[in-house]
């Protein structure tokens, strides 16, 4: 059920407004979104509005979420050594452990990770006088009209640790460390120390000509502090155990479905690339998405996934055109419900779908600004410029957030 819309879905003129990252915080009351222009917008759930008296607009949606804070996280930079521009596009956002009323989030672009603190801060009055001298006596004026406003303060900047583009950031369950992953390496940081990090995975071959796979996403296990998962472009998911050895190149578990020789085609390798993978619920299951399917893996069984859900079968016939238009390389994210039973992912034509772990589609909806459900069009006939790449599922309520170019939709499921 449609809930709210931020931004204009038809406005694709300004590339800087196109969303590139989306994440709910642990408590479910804040939603952070990052865009191509390097800015972060944080929406807050307004619990002050009682359910019955909430303001409903014409379509009957509730305006429960409001813009809480907005700030510019990354700026465009230039790498002088390699003569390359470093884009300010936000690749990933992760919320850290909150402290009182303040929240912390890690944002990353291609090269630098930053830690921000979002909370109420005292606004300074420029030029205010706090002391005065009268008759040779010094007095302190403490009562000044100070207002406090919500703002974001940069706490730390973790830079120069990645030679390739950073694609994920993930916080460890110990509460004080996080990992950052780029195409070939994964580094483990302590949040307090921004001058050095441990490298725990390095899949760079000594001869770059032999490069066969890159890392597409990485995540720490939600409960075990020593387990990390990373997915690769060859369709395999690897679990590493940091307790076993200093370098986790040799993995504890590899989840890979051997390729079906019959259906092999020119595109099968590209299509097998995992665009997003995530632990579900308490970490027993891993859900991964590649271009055409969703796979549910049980961490206890490495040989094949528990379930393979074909979500975009109709695209198989037009893979050639999709390759020509580069759409075949689109990376769609997934989001898992807090109980681990439902999976949300987007598709072309501004459509998204919610699947049940048992393989059934529960919803399949085209995003529309005027809310309500609408019949979905066949994926092959959809508009390939309209894609729902990013999505997130609120961990404490049944709200989901999706992006379609420069628009952010909130739905209730």
């Amino acid at each position: 059920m449609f809930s709210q819309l931020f931004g204009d879905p038809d406005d694709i003129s300004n590339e800087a407004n196109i969303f590139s990252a989306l994440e709910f915080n642990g408590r479910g009351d804040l939603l952070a979104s990052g865009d191509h222009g390097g800015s972060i917008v944080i929406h807050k759930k307004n619990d002050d509005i009682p359910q019955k008296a909430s303001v409903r607009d014409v379509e009957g949606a509730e305006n429960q979420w409001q813009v809480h804070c907005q700030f510019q996280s990354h700026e465009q930079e230039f790498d002088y050594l390699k003569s390359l521009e470093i884009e300010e596009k936000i690749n990933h956002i992760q919320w850290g452990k909150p402290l009182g009323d303040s929240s912390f989030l890690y944002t990353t672009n291609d090269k630098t990770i930053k830690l921000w603190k979002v909370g109420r801060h005292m606004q300074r009055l420029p030029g205010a006088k706090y002391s005065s001298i009268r008759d040779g006596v010094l007095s302190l004026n403490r009562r000044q009209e100070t207002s406090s406003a919500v703002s974001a303060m940069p706490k730390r900047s973790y830079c120069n640790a990645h030679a390739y583009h950073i694609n994920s950031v993930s916080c460890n369950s110990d509460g004080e460390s996080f990992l950052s992953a780029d195409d070939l390496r994964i580094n483990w940081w302590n949040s307090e120390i921004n001058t050095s990090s441990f490298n725990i995975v390095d899949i760079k071959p000594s001869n770059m000509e032999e490069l066969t796979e890159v890392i597409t996403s990485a995540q720490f296990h939600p409960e075990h502090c020593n387990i990390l998962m990373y997915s690769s472009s060859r369709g395999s998911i690897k679990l590493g155990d940091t307790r076993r050895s200093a370098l986790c190149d040799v993995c504890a578990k590899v989840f890979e479905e051997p390729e079906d020789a019959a259906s092999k085609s020119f595109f099968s390798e590209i299509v097998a690339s995992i665009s997003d993978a995530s632990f579900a619920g308490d970490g027993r299951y891993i859900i991964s998405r590649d271009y055409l399917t969703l796979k549910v893996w049980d961490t206890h069984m490495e040989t094949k996934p528990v379930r393979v859900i074909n979500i975009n079968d109709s695209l198989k016939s037009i893979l050639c055109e999709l390759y020509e238009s580069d759409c075949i390389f689109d990376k769609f994210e997934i989001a898992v419900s807090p109980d681990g039973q439902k999976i949300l992912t987007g598709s072309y034509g501004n459509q998204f779908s919610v699947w049940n772990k048992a393989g059934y589609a529960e919803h399949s909806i085209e995003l529309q600004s005027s809310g309500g459900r609408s019949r979905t069009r066949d994926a092959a006939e959809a508009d390939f410029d309209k894609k729902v790449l990013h999505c997130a599922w609120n961990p404490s309520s049944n709200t989901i957030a999706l992006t379609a170019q420069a628009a952010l939709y909130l739905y209730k499921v």
Partner: protein
Amino acid sequence: MDRPRSDSADLYQISLLIDQLRHDDPQIRVNATKSLNNIAEALGPERTRNELIPFINESIDDEDDVLLAIAENIGNLKRYVGGAEFLYTLLEPIELLAVVEDGSVRDVAVMAVVSIIEEMPNDHLLNYFVPFVLKLASKDWFTSRISATALFHIAYSRLPSDTQQEFRAMFSRLCADDTPMVRRMAAKHFGSLAAEMTRTEIQDELLGPFKKLAADEQDSVRIQTVGICIALAGALPTELQISEVLPVVLNIASDKSWRVRWSLAAKISEVGNVMGEQVTNGSLCECFENLLRDQEAEVRSAAAGNITKMCSIIRKDITISRIFPVVNLIVTDSSDHTRASCASVINYLAPLLGRDDTVENLLPMLLQLLRDDSSDVRLNIIASLDAINAVIGVELLSQSLLPAIVDLAEDSKWRVRFAIIEHIPRIAGQLGCTFFNEKLINLCMTWLGDDVYSIRRAAANNLCELSSQFGEEWAKEQIIPRIERMHTHTNYLQRMTALYGIQVLISSLSQPTVEEVIVPLIIQMASDAVPNVRLTVPRTLNDIVRSNGKKFRGNFLATCIQPALETLLVDSDRDVRFYTRQASEGVAAVIGGAQ
């Protein structure tokens, strides 16, 4: 301390400082915070307590740099609050500092508490400090609970026993806190609290939390266990050490996380020191052997670094029969770091073993490490040769030593060459003059002609050290003729290095030699074809004259040096003329000063 003056200029300064405390620019706020005690002094004790401290309390919503400055300077205010009975007023701003998210600010705030508590009277401790700690320990925010863990042991001994019991109970609760970071910090400060408690208290109340922490799910908590073991073992008698602490230590040694095993390997000698002979020679020794054979290279490196310390507390026969076979394996370990770590300490085993055992057991390993592929390993052996020299003399090694040194001297990485040059004077001293002349002196001269500037510089300094070690006659005989030959080298850089080499030699030579031999050599270069060389001449002369000018006899300066400078004053190159002018002025000043 000066008495606070109340003239308006000073008051204005203070007023300015106060405004700066809330200025827009954080850097200005930081600087103003450093003068907090000036403000306090001017306001006087009562106003400091009633106005300044609340003012500071309101400033605590701020950037990390400013908070750090406040935390560093808040302790200084203890002299300005009007005596020990008012120290408790400082606890309020510190409480606000102790809950911020930045760990370094919290640490400094805790240290400020320590300095304040020292002077607080005991009844105030009960009325103010104890509630302060208990409040921090039960607060919602995990950062305040983290700060609390560091505070329990500070004034523990001064508190009455029922309060001590309350503290112990609260601490045990923090050891089982939900947040891993709190448990980790509780583990870190466990030892300091245990040190303040009596044996029965430890036995009854601390052993339980200790074992739970040692079995914690989070690696970051278990890593702290070794520190606790060392502290507890120090406080408990032997039977309890063996029954309570030793099992935990052995568990750490076989922990599934290599980081936890590493924490033991790094501190194993300290564990041995507190645990007593029987344990050290028995189960701890076995533990150590296993760590040396661990599958993770980092653990082996840490253990290898502790070989000497462990062997100094283990009985010699056990060392030779059980540790040495494993050390032999380390010498051929696959990881460079492990071998390098071993090489840096292995020489110091010699004094422990005595001459015969060294020759029989240690020497083969040393010779193998000297031939190692990795330059770090060879460097580490050579760096600690003194220990060997004292026990068996270096002659037995010299056959292998020489090829090793030559190899390192020609290594492609300049930092390796740099490192070996540093060691040459010491090796030369141990090997003796004749050996050095035969084998190593040409090496030292080749370094003077190295491609890398830092090497040439280091080589010249090296010659200086050698000549002060071996004496002037040796220098005149061996070094100076070789340097003279460099003067006619085709490469101008070599000639410049030769000049620099002469200059540093001066400090180890006698004055007549300087006048008769060195200065003429320098002046010879004044007619060089390359301007860079020519301009080094007046610079060198200037340096010499400025440092040694007064030692020159009579009119040496006027007859020998000045004429040479005069020719350079009309040189075609502008830089040469510039430096010559400087040198002339310097010489003239010394001559003038002498007269």
